[in-house]
């Protein structure tokens, strides 16, 4: 991925040491390594909380000005001050001076996201949304995935990044964990792999000829010719099937070794994600999905041939809690979801940190936990005021950006949730007086694209509109402190 020298200076904090920057720069071996690590050797994971996560019961006013408004809005699902997790590290909405707390589920069974926050690895960005918010799951999800609130576009926001970086049709720069390619990654230039688990990701040959390489080659070659023909067809659906088929066949050779390598090299960690081991592993779908990503990143970072995925998508569903949401009840719906995510994210970063600790001379593995960022989003948050036992669709909510390269803390501003500040539909509006607007999700994407992926002008990928013409990604202290 191309970068400018100016970015390099900004990101490494070397601007002041101007004398270092000059013709001699790339002759300094230490700086050469820094260059590789900081600009090219990075990974981005997006985790989608599908269904509309209740942001107000995720990062919750624990004490201070917004607490009484929260208590007005939430009764049976209210989280009590003592039930919330208050991190050691400052966790305050500075605009209102409200002390915040994490939903108890986010502490997981292993410390969860709350522990990562105390390790300075979590940026909590409050009040994320977009103008003219839409309450349809489908449309709002699509708005976030395409990165375009006001106009319809056919590509995903990460897809456009891939398009701009010159990948070939059968390259596999990205993977989705699951059955279908994530809309964020959608584009027409290159291939995105989708799989549930790499262990089963092999080509299915007739069992009777399992050891007959001549037969296998004949089948494989016949099938490879057909997608090649389809890829050349003028019909776009056939092109898609051809490219997907061709890259899938290639990946049946190149990807299963990543599974075998991980299981062989990291048996203890492998068990922590699943049901085996002592104590028993997490064995949730989110944990298992993160393990698949860990396998790929471990392989890529270890230099395994023919794999180069850097972008990943995974999701956890069930957030459409119109009823029986549950508050701090540890068997409740929302609690279970948060615990599953908190546990899995924490374990994943522990795994990466351990890989880094045993990197030895393998530069790809060194500092691996600082090279991976997980961005957590949901298509909307939920209504400020609860209904009978749950919450209806709402507007803005918090996002998380998590990683060892993140300068943790609270970013953005908590929406004013006083009943008098809500719009006619009971939601927090995008613009709230005085002089306050929500954090646009494009601010977060733009910050990641610019400061994590090193692309000078994110607005190439993120069409702006009059409302966000002054983007936060151009604001010095809103870069989430990527290091």
């Amino acid at each position, binding site marked *: 991925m191309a970068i400018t020298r100016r970015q390099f200076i900004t990101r490494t904090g070397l601007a002041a040491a101007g004398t270092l920057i000059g013709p001699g720069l790339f002759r300094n071996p230490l700086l050469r390594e820094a260059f590789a690590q900081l600009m090219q050797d990075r990974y981005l994971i997006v985790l989608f909380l599908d269904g509309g996560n209740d942001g107000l019961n995720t990062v919750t006013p624990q004490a201070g000005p917004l607490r009484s408004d929260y208590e007005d809005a939430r009764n049976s699902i209210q989280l009590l001050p003592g039930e919330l997790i208050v991190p050691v590290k400052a966790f305050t909405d500075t605009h209102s001076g409200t002390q915040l707390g994490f939903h108890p589920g986010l502490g997981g069974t292993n410390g969860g996201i709350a522990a990562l926050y105390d390790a300075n690895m979590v940026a909590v960005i409050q009040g994320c949304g977009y103008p003219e918010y839409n309450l349809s799951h489908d449309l709002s999800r699509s708005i976030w995935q395409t990165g375009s609130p006001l106009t319809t576009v056919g590509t995903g926001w990460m897809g456009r990044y891939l398009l701009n970086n010159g990948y070939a049709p059968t390259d596999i720069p990205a993977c989705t964990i699951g059955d279908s390619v994530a809309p964020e990654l959608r584009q027409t230039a290159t291939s995105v792999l989708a799989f549930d688990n790499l262990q089963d990701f092999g080509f299915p040959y007739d069992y009777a000829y399992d050891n007959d390489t001549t037969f296998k080659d004949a089948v494989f070659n016949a099938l490879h010719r057909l997608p090649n023909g389809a890829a050349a067809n003028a019909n776009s659906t056939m092109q898609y*099937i051809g490219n*997907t088929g061709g890259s899938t066949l290639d990946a049946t050779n190149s990807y299963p070794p990543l599974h075998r390598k991980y299981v062989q090299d990291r048996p203890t960690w492998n068990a922590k994600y699943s049901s085996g081991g002592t104590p028993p592993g997490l064995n949730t779908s989110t944990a298992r999905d993160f393990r698949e990503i860990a396998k790929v990143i471990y392989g890529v970072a270890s230099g395994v041939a023919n794999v180069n995925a850097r972008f990943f998508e995974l999701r956890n569903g069930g957030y459409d809690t119109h009823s029986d949401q549950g508050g701090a009840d540890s068997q409740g719906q929302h609690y279970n979801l948060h615990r599953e995510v908190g546990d899995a994210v924490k374990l994943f970063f522990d795994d990466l940190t351990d890989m880094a600790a045993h990197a030895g001379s393998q530069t790809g593995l060194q500092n691996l936990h600082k090279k991976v960022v997980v961005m957590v989003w949901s298509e909307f948050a939920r209504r400020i005021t609860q*209904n009978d036992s749950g919450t209806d669709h709402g507007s803005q909510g918090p996002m998380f950006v998590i990683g060892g390269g993140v300068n943790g803390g609270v970013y953005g501003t908590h929406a004013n949730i006083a009943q008098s500040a809500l719009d006619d539909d009971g939601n927090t509006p995008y613009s709230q007086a005085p002089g306050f607007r929500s954090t646009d999700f494009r601010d977060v994407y733009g910050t990641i694209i610019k400061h994590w992926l090193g692309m000078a002008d994110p607005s190439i990928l993120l069409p702006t509109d009059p409302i966000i013409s002054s983007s936060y990604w151009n604001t010095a202290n809103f870069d989430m402190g990527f290091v």
Partner: protein
Amino acid sequence: MSADTPLVLSDARHLLRRAGFEATVAAAQKLVDDNPTRGDAADQLLSFTPSKFKPGGRYVEDIANKWVRYMVKTKLQLQERLVLFWHDHFATSFQKVGDVGQMAVQNRLIRLNCRGSFKDFVKAINKDPAMMEFLDTVHNHKGDPNENYGRELQELFTLGVKDPMGNPNYEQDDVKQIARAFTGWDYDRTGTAFLDTSSHDKGDSVEHWNPARGPKVIYKTRGGFGNPSGQDFSAGTNYAQEVDNVIDIIFRHRYLDATNTLRNTVGDYIAKKLITYFAQPDPSQSYVTAVVDESGFGSSFDLTALLKSIFVHDDFYLTAVPPGAGTHKSVKWPVDYVVSSLRLLQIRLKGKDQSLLGGEGDPQGGDDVSIRDLLENMGQVLFEPPSVFGWDWETAWLSSATLLARYAFARDIAGARGGGRTSFRPERLFDLTESDPGTIVDAVTELLGVKDQLTNSNRDDLITYLTDAGAMPTIDLSDTDTLYRKLNGLVAVVLQSPVYQLQ
């Protein structure tokens, strides 16, 4: 319009592909012999009396397996195509409903309504226990209204978010108002819906955080009704009538088209979706309006009339051509892929779990995998659609994960060699004395319905496979090993080929 257009064999085969699962040459020939015109053929296909079939079983896996078995066996192929469509349209998931019996009852409700009055269908869905659980009608009370059903009823079931001109069909206030009509509805132990009026919003007491909402009206600013005070759905003290009144109003919702003519919104929305399912992705608006106008669907809401108009229109037959520049092709749904393949190859599912012979293990034994689980790998778990939107269609069906699942299914059915009705028996389908590779390729691709969709180069690729790139110029299918390697292998490769993934 072409109801009187003579029915030719190629069109008959296309119609059967889209309206059923088993478009053999023989079936197409019979359709032509029985029906002089496209209109006659459509009438014949649509003349079925809906079956009362209800998949039975204790677990959701059971009813999913039983439904697939029914699709593989039934003569009412169009009926099952429609039930599948409506299952996606009124997407309801066992994951939330949690009651197998209710899911099965909804499946029968859909079957009984699949080609009747769409308006009656929606009124029935309003009171279907599985739907009432899934979209929270049972959790919708005065003072604590739940908007879930009020929104999806409009967005997904009847109107769509925006009309064909891109204007919103409704506003948030309409969602809230419709939610009021549904407050207090529940169902009894026999599954019959009833209104608990004590829990119904009669316009009286409300909680402090839900201020009074005024008159019970919708579409003050939308719906093309020209009445700024909106459409009143109240019914005096006959509160149970309100939900039917809401449906009656929704079915009168109109939008202004490009020629400034008011058109029924439900009619065009449903017609477009059915065309997208049966005929082609991204249909032209002129195809949509033509079939709605010809069938009168915009006022009668008669699904049979609408389907006939779709099936006789010239645009329906445009997609019969092989894929190429300017053609619109649809991707087979996983259920279509599985059911069509089983029917064309005359393979029955086996045992209580409706599994394939061989399944995951090997032909000599091993674990059998149920058809429901095989479909799960392909991205379509019946009775468990991924969300209220149902499944994502077209290329979203296909990814490396789901393609590999289709490849595995193809391997399994082509390799099912046990000898009985649950196995692949090539001797019943092909002339095994044939030795010419080109003729064998033609026979296999013709049976599987893709011969006319292949390019010459595709055909050469398949011949290359049979002949080991010319090393084996004739094929001796009487030799068991050659039969397995070459004929079974060829069947698998064709089922795995790009063009077979298309409808």
